[in-house]
């Protein structure tokens, strides 16, 4: 890596963890401005190929950094992550910064207010580098459904970085940002983390405010941290979490002690003695890539060495979780996306000959929404329509109850549950774009947590032997027990790094500065470039 700073020519600041950055600033070894500039330089060099950022707010990030540096120089008491740069998924409203949700509908939408989580980043005095790419309205598992071109996986530019939060995962994995915000409705934080070798956490439903976050499916959506280490994720989790009166589904209880849990974790034999880890029988086996399964089995061995007892648990209704999810999500999405009528905001298309408001709405929505959004709105409208409601949406809600009961029973036998996070490593861009069903199956392991509202985490378990690409292991815990994920995740992370000679992220190959043409991709990267400049101007 070639980025260096004037004060420390030997060290690449972007390779540090968030914890190291915070410590280095506190020790006076670097400044927030140097950190932000190092990341902006790397973004400038690599984003044309990766398309991880839709918008880069260099001026805003540097201004925050300089304020933090001045405050630190003045001896002010600062929050732990003050001065550490962060990227925000383009689903969260940022006052004065275009927020598109990856859609043409909101291509020019400049929010008049901040989402609560953005307010919390500002209160934590974290410079916001920019907004990251995503599948349109978070519908997808590859970021190919973004209206502004696909994001590419830093491990292999011909492959997807996962989705919907592929911009955030690519930014973190590619060292364009140490931390990022994601949103997880069916796996959109955890699956991108798995396929990019990073850490992603979906907190307990209601643990983090959704106010100002563009809604996909309101009973499933949850905001969470993307990071390269479990310790970094914990620090960001504590910044984001906690009650918000502006979100009626926000839990009025203290944030689970996630940072404390990481501090107590150890890679030593027996450090997890007394812990019961449940392997969900229904997740894995057929449809799971051999290398994914192999790394998972090795992680189980490490958990055993740490002293955990591995037990098999059964969640028999998981086999119907995908079907229930793909009724509940489109139903809620069709209702949430009804607001995009191009009347008060959004892209308006006006057909010829004095059209009615209704005709303008229908033309605008056809024009501005992509295929996946249309598919899901139509599916949801159908599932909710009279005559079909009981057989589809109503029945899906009953299956949801059974899945939540399965998990409750499983947590009677085990403290945490584990599975592979995604069935395969990153697939090639274009491979599943025209086969929605194949795309949906990426979320098979992650969806049950959203249906039940429980927390989940993905951490890297190694590289698959057959393709050298990252694999993730998922941990699940009961609601409001997020700290268990961090305690087990941190111990396993340290143990795996010891067994594999270092963390997965450190094995990232040099990222090329230009991206190859990808057959089958409908968009070319860089279409968002105009968008970036326009906002900067």
């Amino acid at each position: 890596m070639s980025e260096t700073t004037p004060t420390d020519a030997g060290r690449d600041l972007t390779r540090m963890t968030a914890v190291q950055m915070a410590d280095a600033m506190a020790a006076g070894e670097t400044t927030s401005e140097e950190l932000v500039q190092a990341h902006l330089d790397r973004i400038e060099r690599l984003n044309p190929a990766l398309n991880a950022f839709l918008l880069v707010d260099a001026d805003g990030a540097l201004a925050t950094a300089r304020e933090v540096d001045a405050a630190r120089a003045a001896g002010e008491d600062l929050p732990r992550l003050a001065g550490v740069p962060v990227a925000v998924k383009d689903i969260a409203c940022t006052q004065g910064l275009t927020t598109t949700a990856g859609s043409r509908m909101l291509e020019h939408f400049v929010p008049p207010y901040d989402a609560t989580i953005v307010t919390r980043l500002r209160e934590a005095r974290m410079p916001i580098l920019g907004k990251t790419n995503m599948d349109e309205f978070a519908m997808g598992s590859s970021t190919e459904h973004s209206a502004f071109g696909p994001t590419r996986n830093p491990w292999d530019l011909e492959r997807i970085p996962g989705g919907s939060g592929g911009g955030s995962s690519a930014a973190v994995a590619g060292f364009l940002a140490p931390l990022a915000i994601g949103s997880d409705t069916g796996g959109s934080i955890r699956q991108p983390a798995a396929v990019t070798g990073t850490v992603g956490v979906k907190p307990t439903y209601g643990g983090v405010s959704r106010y100002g976050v563009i809604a996909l499916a309101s009973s499933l959506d949850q905001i969470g941290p993307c990071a390269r280490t479990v310790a970094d994720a914990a620090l960001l989790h504590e910044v984001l979490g906690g009650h918000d009166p502006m979100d009626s589904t926000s839990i009025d209880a203290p944030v689970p002690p996630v940072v404390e849990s990481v501090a107590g974790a150890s890679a030593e034999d027996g450090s997890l003695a007394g812990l019961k880890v449940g392997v969900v029988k229904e997740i894995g086996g057929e449809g799971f890539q051999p290398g994914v399964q192999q790394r998972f089995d090795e992680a189980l061995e490490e958990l055993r060495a740490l002293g955990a007892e591995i037990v098999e648990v059964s969640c028999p209704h998981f086999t119907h979780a995908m079907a229930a999810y793909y009724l509940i999500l489109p139903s809620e999405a069709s209702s949430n996306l009804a607001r995009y009528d191009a009347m008060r905001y959004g892209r308006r298309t006006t057909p010829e000959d004095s059209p009615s408001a209704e005709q303008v709405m229908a033309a605008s929505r056809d024009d501005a929404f992509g295929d996946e959004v249309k598919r899901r709105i139509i599916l949801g409208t159908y599932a909710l329509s009279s005559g079909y409601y009981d057989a589809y949406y109503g029945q899906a809600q009953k299956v949801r109850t059974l899945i939540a009961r399965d998990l409750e029973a499983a947590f009677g036998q085990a403290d945490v549950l584990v599975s592979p996070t995604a069935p395969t490593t990153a697939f090639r861009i274009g491979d599943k774009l025209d086969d929605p069903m194949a795309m949906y199956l990426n979320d098979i392991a992650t969806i049950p947590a959203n249906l039940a509202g429980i927390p989940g985490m993905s951490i890297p378990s190694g590289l698959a032997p057959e393709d050298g690409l990252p694999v993730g292991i998922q941990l699940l815990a009961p609601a409001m027990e997020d700290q268990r994920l961090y305690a087990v995740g941190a111990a396993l992370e340290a143990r795996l790094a010891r067994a594999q000679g270092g963390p997965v992220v450190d094995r990232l190959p040099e990222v090329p500065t230009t991206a190859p043409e990808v057959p089958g991709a409908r968009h070319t990267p860089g279409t968002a470039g105009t968008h970036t400049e326009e906002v900067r101007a």
Partner: protein
Amino acid sequence: MSNLSRDDVAHVAMLARIQLEDSELDRLAGQLDQIVDWVGQVNEVAAADVPPMSHPLPLVNVTRPDEVRPSLTAEQALANAPDPEDGRFGVPRILDEE
């Protein structure tokens, strides 16, 4: 098994206020039929006595005192409007001309 015809998709799309073009209907109708067929498997689960779950949390209404608070200015509220006019949202006609 066909659950959803091309006409059904066109009808539901109109209910959702999406004016699909013919080429889009051709592309989406088959995919949606396949998806509807697949999600219909939820009916294989015997769940007659199971209560539906609409949400992970027991929801209660959250209210606040009915007091005037700072809010967006008219200018801010109109800043993203496609057709603002005289401090209002400009919209196409809502009633038929005939």
